[in-house]
């Protein structure tokens, strides 16, 4: 009988924190600046410069730790991780090895096999490295230190996951929790959330873990799922053919659907960690922790229950709206302005999601304000614009956050409620289309649709189709 294998997976997730400045200096973390315009002696590792911890980094790290049921380390320190690489100007990365800020946590995930806890071994704070660009012309490498010193937390899970599905559920749970906290936007494609997958296989029922490999360069959930399948197959093939799995770091090439061993930096594993003498210990008291606890937001599970209770929305709507913090915030703010919850939900679920998908945007990228959405809903409710016009206005609002009231006014999109004007248009359509009129009178009910269409056209779309219909029936 063929051997059955179990996959054992643990994750190292790096999350870039949403601070304005770097972890140890007052340089901006803004994206897209010209190379090296966000640098200073601290983040370029100049001798004699002194790093000072950004308090916000600590607050975010503790908030994530509390949200993932971790123990918070009340006496915590930073350590130097030594390695030579040009993206790391100090020749060490400031990180935490001995006393990381959070330990022993867990998150609950849900897959089609039910609920399960995934353990979190630790969360530590550290700095990001610079960016290396290889110059083909001059045979040299160019370094941009704008990213150097950008704050990260690394969330290390226990080897508790057994399938790609569980890994994705775990990542989605982390992402949602961190987005709800506002600690990061967690975009995999843009690298503000990065996951390294540690994977081994063992015969089903075996106690001991197999030899694991670490997989890097995973930029999407799909790539992660494919890399897990690919690595599982590769390791099983090795074992089945009598070979051994070598503990190594591999790089996933998603285009080719295969991984290759990264050339190991010579003895790179010897990082010679030691406490960083430039940074003093962080000592936390209960008052600090209570303050962070007090500021924790309402997380998704609680929000879902409340939406059901307060707004009586269908589960389907609640599931979609609460899946992204930005959507939930927009929903609540729009409802707070007096819009009817189900109507707000419809605009978000249908038109907003459609446009996001079409433009390949994330909910975080939504630009329109709740005030403008509320105005649009009230315009549609009062029949000041018909549903076709409302959708056009919405697209404009989605694109440029225009004020729908002003826009409708300026572009003259208001539905013509002036019955005499409408009556004149209908009379003209009847006079111009004798064939359809005869058809309708002859019992062809459908012919009225054409006449409604012609009237709407004559009114440049600015009529209430219901009213047109009614007038036509009356005049025919």
């Amino acid at each position, binding site marked *: 009988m063929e051997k059955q294998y179990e996959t054992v997976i643990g994750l190292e997730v790096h999350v870039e924190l949403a*601070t*304005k*400045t770097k972890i140890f*200096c*007052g*340089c*901006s973390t803004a994206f897209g600046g*010209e*190379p*090296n*315009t*966000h*640098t*200073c*002696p601290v983040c*370029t590792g*100049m001798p004699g410069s002194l790093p*000072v*911890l*950004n*308090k*916000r*980094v*600590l607050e975010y790290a503790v908030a994530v730790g509390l949200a993932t049921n971790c123990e918070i380390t009340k006496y915590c*320190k930073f350590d130097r991780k*030594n390695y*030579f*690489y*040009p993206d790391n100007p100090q020749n060490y990365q400031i990180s935490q090895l001995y006393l990381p800020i959070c330990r022993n946590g867990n998150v609950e995930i849900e897959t089609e096999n039910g609920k399960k806890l995934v353990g979190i071994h630790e969360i530590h704070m550290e700095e990001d490295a610079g960016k*290396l*660009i*290889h*110059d083909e012309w*001059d*045979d*040299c*490498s*160019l*370094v*941009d*230190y704008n990213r150097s010193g950008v704050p990260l937390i690394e969330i290390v899970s226990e080897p508790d996951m057994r399938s790609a599905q569980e890994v994705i559920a775990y990542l989605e749970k982390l992402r949602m929790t961190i987005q709800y906290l506002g600690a990061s936007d967690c975009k995999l494609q843009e690298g503000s959330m990065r996951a390294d997958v540690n994977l081994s296989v063992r015969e089903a029922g075996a106690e001991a873990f197999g030899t694991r490999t670490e997989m890097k360069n995973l930029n999407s959930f799909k790539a992660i799922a494919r890399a897990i399948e690919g690595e599982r197959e590769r390791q099983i093939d090795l074992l089945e053919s009598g070979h051994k799995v070598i503990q190594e770091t591999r790089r996933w090439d998603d285009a080719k659907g295969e991984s290759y061993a*990264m*050339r190991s*930096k*010579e*003895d790179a594993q*010897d990082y*010679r960690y030691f*406490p960083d*003498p430039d*940074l*003093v*210990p*962080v*000592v936390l008291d209960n008052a600090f922790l209570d303050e962070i606890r007090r500021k924790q937001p309402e997380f998704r599970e609680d929000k879902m229950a409340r939406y059901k209770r307060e707004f009586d929305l269908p589960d389907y709507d609640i599931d979609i709206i609460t899946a992204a913090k930005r959507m939930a915030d927009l929903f609540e703010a729009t409802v707070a302005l007096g819009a009817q919850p189900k109507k707000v939900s419809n605009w978000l679920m249908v038109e907003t999601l459609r446009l996001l998908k079409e433009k390949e945007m994330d909910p975080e990228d939504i630009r329109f304000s709740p005030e403008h959405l509320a105005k649009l809903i009230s315009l549609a409710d009062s029949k000041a614009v018909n549903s076709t016009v409302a959708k056009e206005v919405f697209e404009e609002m989605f694109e440029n956050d225009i004020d729908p009231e002003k826009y409708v006014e300026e572009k003259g999109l208001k539905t013509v409620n002036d019955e005499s004007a409408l009556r004149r248009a209908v009379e003209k359509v009847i006079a111009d289309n004798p064939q359809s009129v005869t058809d309708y009178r002859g019992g062809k009910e459908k012919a009225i649709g054409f006449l409604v269409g012609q009237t709407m056209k004559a009114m440049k779309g600015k009529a209430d189709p219901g009213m047109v219909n009614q007038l036509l029936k009356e005049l025919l």
Partner: protein
Amino acid sequence: MANIISDETIEYVGILAKLELTDEEKERAKKDMGSMLDYIDKLGELDTRGVEPMSHVFPVNNVFREDVVTNGDEREAILKNAPEEKNGMFAVPRTFE
């Protein structure tokens, strides 16, 4: 000298420090490192049971900065520290993983 540094150890330390040493330099480094370790061994003469390892000399905790941008664009000054500069970046020997 109580601490004898082996050829393998000095080779390994050289790799970690990215240093290429001549045979003569290796011999000298072995001797220096041995005597440094002998000196450190003096600490072993003390009873340090129950003493917390110290990472900082001063009893100072919790030094923070607020999350406020205080640095402007200092690129020109920073790039003066580069071995070579190209396109506003530090140019270094070609390096890849």
